[in-house]
């Protein structure tokens, strides 16, 4: 199996504060890979290192079997696209203009788009089902629609890998499923490796091919969903009582939060 991301003995600290400690894992190509873990476990820092925002301090990070240091800014941008949590849109670009910006890693300094770039942007817009909104201003869209625009922009960047930082965090139920379905479709139809940080363990269990669980800056568990999502591992990391059984849809594990009034262990 080809690896798209190879992390080896990676550590990172902000001053005295060790945020990531000796982390190692591999993401296969065309994988839906989800990183879960409690707040402050180092998920976002890990994401920033993989996306090239932060430089790795210790250890190795290879993207498509090549050390990340060897990438030029633009060639890294052609390989990895990043979708941050939520963006404010104070300067009203249209959906089309926003998506088209995804082409800039391929263009010169002024980013003058050619016919071909417009075509790729339109394809990304069609793929995310935004055709009807293409000429609307970004600040007129709902949160879920905006999130799709940012994903379309990432697709327009034509990357091998898409990184997403909690893309479903502030969305309603329908949009959560819609975004996750879209990422699965992206993996299957375009062969893109999807790496996502998620707070929603249940969604992660249903969609991920592989998972890692981060806790206090370390990988405490990695593997298939039913290997990672067990009540032992989750309770140890999150420090709360959980019930894990099988989803009524079959195959994937299901996590139920247990409020204190139901808890039998006191």
């Amino acid at each position: 199996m080809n690896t798209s991301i190879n992390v080896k003995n990676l550590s990172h600290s902000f001053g005295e504060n060790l945020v990531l400690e000796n982390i190692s894992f591999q993401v296969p190509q065309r994988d839906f890979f989800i990183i879960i873990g409690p707040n402050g476990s180092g998920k976002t820092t890990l994401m920033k290192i993989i996306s090239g925002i932060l430089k790795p301090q210790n250890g190795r990070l290879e993207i498509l079997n090549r050390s990340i240091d060897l990438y030029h800014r633009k060639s890294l941008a052609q390989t990895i696209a990043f979708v941050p949590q939520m963006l404010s849109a104070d300067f009203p670009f249209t959906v089309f203009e926003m998506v088209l910006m995804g082409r800039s890693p391929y263009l010169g300094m002024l980013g003058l788009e050619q016919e071909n770039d417009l075509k790729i942007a339109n394809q990304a817009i069609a793929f995310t089902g935004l055709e009807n909104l293409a000429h609307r201003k970004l600040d007129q869209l709902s949160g879920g629609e905006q999130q799709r625009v940012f994903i379309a922009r990432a697709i327009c960047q034509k990357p091998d890998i898409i990184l997403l930082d909690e893309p479903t965090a502030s969305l309603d139920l329908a949009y959560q499923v819609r975004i996750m379905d879209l990422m699965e479709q992206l993996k299957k139809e375009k062969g893109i490796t999807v790496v996502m940080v998620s707070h929603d363990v249940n969604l992660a269990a249903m969609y991920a091919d592989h998972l890692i669980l981060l806790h206090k800056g370390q990988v405490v568990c990695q593997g298939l969903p039913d290997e990672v999502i067990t009540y032992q591992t989750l309770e140890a990391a999150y420090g709360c009582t959980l019930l894990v059984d099988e989803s009524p849809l079959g195959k994937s594990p299901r996590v139920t939060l247990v409020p204190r009034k139901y808890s039998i262990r006191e």
Partner: protein
Amino acid sequence: MNTKTPYLIKRIVTASSLLILLLGFAMVLGISMGSTDSGIKNVFQNLLGEKEPDSMLYTIIWQIRFPRVILSALVGAALSLGGLVFQALLRNPLAEPYILGISGGSAIGAIVGILIGFSRFPGVSLTAFIGSIVTLLLILAMSSGQTILKKDALLLSGVMVNAFCAAVIMFLISMTQDSRIHNIIFWLMGDLSSGDMRQVGILAVILLPCFLLVFWLSNPMNLLLMGKELAQTMGVNIKLVTITLLVATSFMVSATVSYCGLVGFVGLVMPHMLRLVFGPDHRVLVPACVFGGGTYMVFCDLLARILPKQGEMPVGVITAIIGAPLFIYLLKRSSK
């Protein structure tokens, strides 16, 4: 490679030519009108050399009005562009060199330069530049924490920086007793009357490379609007772009301040209006701000010259009367 003209070039050319036409119109008006009413026809015949040069009119046109109109256009362009750059870098549509206090800091520098007795260029320009850089660093230091980057906090700190600068300026003025004081006070509200062709030429040589540099960085400015981190993952060298833009902008602002004092709100009014008309793409907005800002300033200066019954008023009076209400309107709208 496709040989078709990218659609963006068309947009840039359309917007720019439209505004160049307006600028030309404003300049003709600016040259023709003034306290000595000479009639547009007369002026034209004089300009085209169809008439024996009427020596009085000739002098007024070529030695007073023409340099003044060019100076206004340059100053308007630089200040509009300054506003545009700060709005992009701070991701805040209310940012502007005057509101942030950078003009004020640069004015302190300039006044120190004037009091020492430096010539306008390079002495006063240089002290003004130092003043603006110091203020800029101060503002950036204050806004580097996560929370203060919020709109209101940034604006509040700007108000405070301005209040401080105003106090320092008043302090400096109170400490001096000679005749330079009158100049300084007039200059505090913006004074475009001092240009001769040589000085205007020097200012143009300073500003034009800055305009080009900012235009060169206009696409990264688009990406910066989405946040520094995202822009970085799209291949932008954030540090280099940010520092280059900040230095170029401070340089432009301090150059204009040292030539014509404090003219406020131009960098707020023009980018806002041009964004409404041409959209938020900086590759269109940068040239639009240069030509549109120039036009606006030539008109404001014209008003400042013809409105008073006697003499003229500082152009900063006009720009503030237009700009301050717009600022309040924008603030109210953006806090919704």
